[in-house]
């Protein structure tokens, strides 16, 4: 299973979304599912760039996409700061305009778009594993 390395910069997001879309399309995922996978991958990579690396230059993140018969697993690895993924509060997406939280939306979208999401921190770095089944 090939692993793709990207500089941890927002300019990499386009390429990350393209890799995910190409692999998901080859696995027969619907265009709706492909858009969801691209959005989840983008939000996850954005989090790594912003939080794990805090915008530091020279850092990298790696992306692998593992196709199985009925599901795809996207794994992202970074060597930055651990990010307490599970402590991100669920934003109230029903709140009125003035009470709408400005943060937490990325993690919320990842959880909504993917079937399973697991975040692990090791001494060597952090691993986010996200799986989506075919509908």
């Amino acid at each position, binding site marked *: 299973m090939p692993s793709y390395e990207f500089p941890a910069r927002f300019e990499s997001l386009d390429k990350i979304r393209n890799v995910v879309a190409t692999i998901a399309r080859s696995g027969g995922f619907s265009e709706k599912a492909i858009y969801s996978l691209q*959005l989840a991958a983008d939000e996850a990579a954005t989090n790594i760039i912003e939080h794990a690396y805090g915008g530091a230059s020279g850092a990298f993140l790696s992306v692998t996409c593992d196709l199985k018969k009925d599901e795809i697993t996207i794994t992202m690895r970074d060597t930055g700061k651990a990010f307490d993924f599970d402590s991100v509060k669920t934003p109230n997406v029903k*709140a009125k305009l003035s009470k709408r939280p400005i943060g937490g939306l990325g993690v919320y979208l990842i959880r909504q778009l993917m079937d399973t999401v697991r975040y692990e921190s090791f001494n060597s770095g952090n691993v986010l594993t996200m799986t989506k089944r075919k509908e």
Partner: protein
Amino acid sequence: MEITTQTFKHCDLISVNGRVDSATAPQFARILEAAMDAGRFKLVLDLNELEYMSSAGFRALLAAQRNCKRYNRGEVVLARVPQRIREALELAGFTELFKTFDDPTVAVGNF
């Protein structure tokens, strides 16, 4: 991402093309801020040619809507929202915060 703005008597029509993500959202936000700084608070965003928008773009939309609606001076409305983007906005609960129109001319006429 490419953005073009047309100024009408009662509102601005802003067409957003391409992809809005964390790389391009700051430019998207700056264009919305420039309109508001110029005293334009009635904004129609035509999203017909928008291919993709992440939560970075959603945040810019939210900030603009808060600013425009202050003192009842205006509002941001959306026109021709592509299906995938509409679905993502729904997931984020944003469709409740923005009037949407199928026809940008009707959206402009709304002001």
